[in-house]
């Protein structure tokens, strides 16, 4: 019997002990926190493994589950070789390519798409929420219907369209089709509905232009939704694989998920390298998530729980 099994058994014995002593409330509380903690350990273990794996030398990668014992820490067991190897120039058909180019591609793609999405979706959502105009009903119906169509169905013809427009194998070909989305428009419409009509009317009487009302009055009021949407959008594009994998061909134009998938095969004998790349790719989403955590959770669930 090993330590882990003994620990699990001890926890179970404590629980049964509380039950036998008739302390049911304490027992159920104990069980609740034990289960949650065990769950958290299971969820965090792969991250801990990854963080220790990328600093281990390839000679000891499989020797220890996590880090080697402190006494054995040295340049031979723990070093930055994986990252050094990752950032080395690699030959391709278009000349040497560096890992930071993929980081740059992913950053440009995710950032541009997110900025355009926030601008166009908030503009459209505001128009749907606060204006009466001819064709509004038809447009809303069309949007609801279009959300039923799974994106995969459109991928092949969309690819053809992007080829016809001459945008294939460029970041523009990824960014332009993704600049606006029905989901985002509906989210912003929901948020704009809460803006009081009196404020908009007052601004209009004071001579504020329609775009000015949107920019100076409505946008500041829907900022929490914009923050949540910013995170959803950035995460979605940063982690996007299917579309970039189909649309991009040249090595120097690829984004991180596409490249890391290729590295799986390329570095089969040297797993530390693509694991190091994977770790780096996780940092921007994590930073953004910690910054916007509160808005994110409420934004994510607002549509579902209210509806």
């Amino acid at each position, binding site marked *: 019997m090993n330590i882990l099994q003994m620990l699990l058994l001890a926890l179970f014995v404590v629980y049964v002990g509380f039950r036998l002593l008739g302390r049911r409330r304490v027992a159920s509380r104990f069980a609740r926190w034990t289960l949650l903690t065990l769950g958290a350990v299971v969820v965090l273990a792969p991250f801990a493994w990854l963080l220790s794996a990328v600093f281990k030398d390839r000679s000891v990668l499989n020797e220890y589950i996590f880090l080697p014992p402190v006494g054995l820490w040295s340049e031979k067991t723990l070093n930055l070789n994986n990252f050094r190897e990752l950032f080395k120039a690699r030959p391709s058909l278009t000349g040497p390519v560096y890992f930071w180019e993929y980081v740059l591609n992913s950053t440009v793609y995710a950032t541009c798409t997110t900025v355009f999405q926030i601008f166009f979706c908030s503009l459209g959502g505001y128009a749907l929420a606060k204006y009466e105009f001819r064709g509004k009903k038809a447009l809303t119906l069309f949007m609801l219907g279009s959300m039923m169509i799974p994106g995969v169905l459109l991928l092949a013809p969309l690819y053809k369209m992007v080829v016809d427009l001459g945008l294939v194998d460029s970041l523009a070909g990824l960014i332009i089709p993704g600049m606006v989305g029905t989901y985002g428009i509906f989210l912003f419409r929901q948020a704009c509905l809460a803006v009081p009509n009196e404020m908009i009317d007052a601004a209009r009487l004071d001579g504020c232009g*329609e775009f000015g009302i949107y920019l100076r009055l409505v946008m500041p009021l829907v900022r929490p939704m914009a923050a949540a949407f910013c995170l959803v959008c950035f995460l979605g594009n940063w982690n996007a694989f299917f579309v970039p994998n189909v649309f991009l061909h040249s090595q120097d134009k690829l984004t991180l998920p596409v490249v890391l998938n290729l590295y799986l095969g390329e570095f089969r004998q040297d797993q530390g390298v693509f694991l190091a790349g994977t770790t780096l790719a996780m940092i921007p*989403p994590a930073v953004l998530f910690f910054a916007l955590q509160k808005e994110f959770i409420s934004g994510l669930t607002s549509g579902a729980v209210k509806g």
Partner: protein
Amino acid sequence: MINSVAQRPSRPQGRPRYKGKAPYVFLSPYVVLTAVFFAVPFFNAIMLAFYETNGPRSRAFVGLANFVFLFRDSTFRRALLNTTVFALVSVFLQLPLSMALALLLNAGAARVKGFFRLVFFSPNLVGQVLVGILFSVLFTPRYGLVNRGFQLVLHWGLETRWLSDPRFIMPAIVLASLWLWVGFNMIYFLAALQTVDKTLQEAARIDGANPWQIFWHVTLPSMRHVVVFVVIMSVIGSYQLFELPLTLLSESYGFGANDAGLTLITYLNYRAFRAGDLGLGSAVGWVVAVIIFFISLIQIRLGRVAEED
């Protein structure tokens, strides 16, 4: 205000109507982009399924031959079966787990709740591709974290070839997907649990209902909207599973030994973008779309029936 409402019921806000062009201008980016990158591809998608194509430029009309080919192709039927199995597992294993976690967490203090919520949600930041890459190493026989973990707790599985033994490929995909998505659905259930009327649960408890009965007859029915929403979302998501098996089984482009990990979208990706037949790919897309449409319809119906009870 009240007068104007009475006189003109068609305009309940009772304020001067804006007559300018602003809404059209504001919506024009959406309309233009959607026309080019949604409407036209959508009509092409209808057409394309009836053509045999070789790359994006050459095509020949073949009528229903693509669909006939699909249903005669045993590989496609295997993909359909695998994907359906995965969808069933998502609904009957992943969602109950999410619900259990949400129930455990719901009683906790706000700060502790926030911490665990963050932990359980964290795999979602990473996305399917990175999770697939990470787990392709965690499932290594003898050395992988999953194999070592099973060995430590259950004395089983150190040498299990999760990603090359056809019997274990689907369980491996399910394990990785549980790690990725249990926390995601938990967020929805947790938010819904907070809207459930506490007095109803209290009344049931005083009437002598046990915790299980309270959950089944009071809590679950009062959050059925969210449950239906989450079930639909996860079935739709399951039928579009692709990146996780692709990266887990990268040596065989996501097919796995004996096609044990093949999903519908992996098949679509292979047919359309590796073999170059966009028409056949479109036909697969239609099959997926129709499946998703009918399953959503059935679930919305079931949700309504539950409401009338």
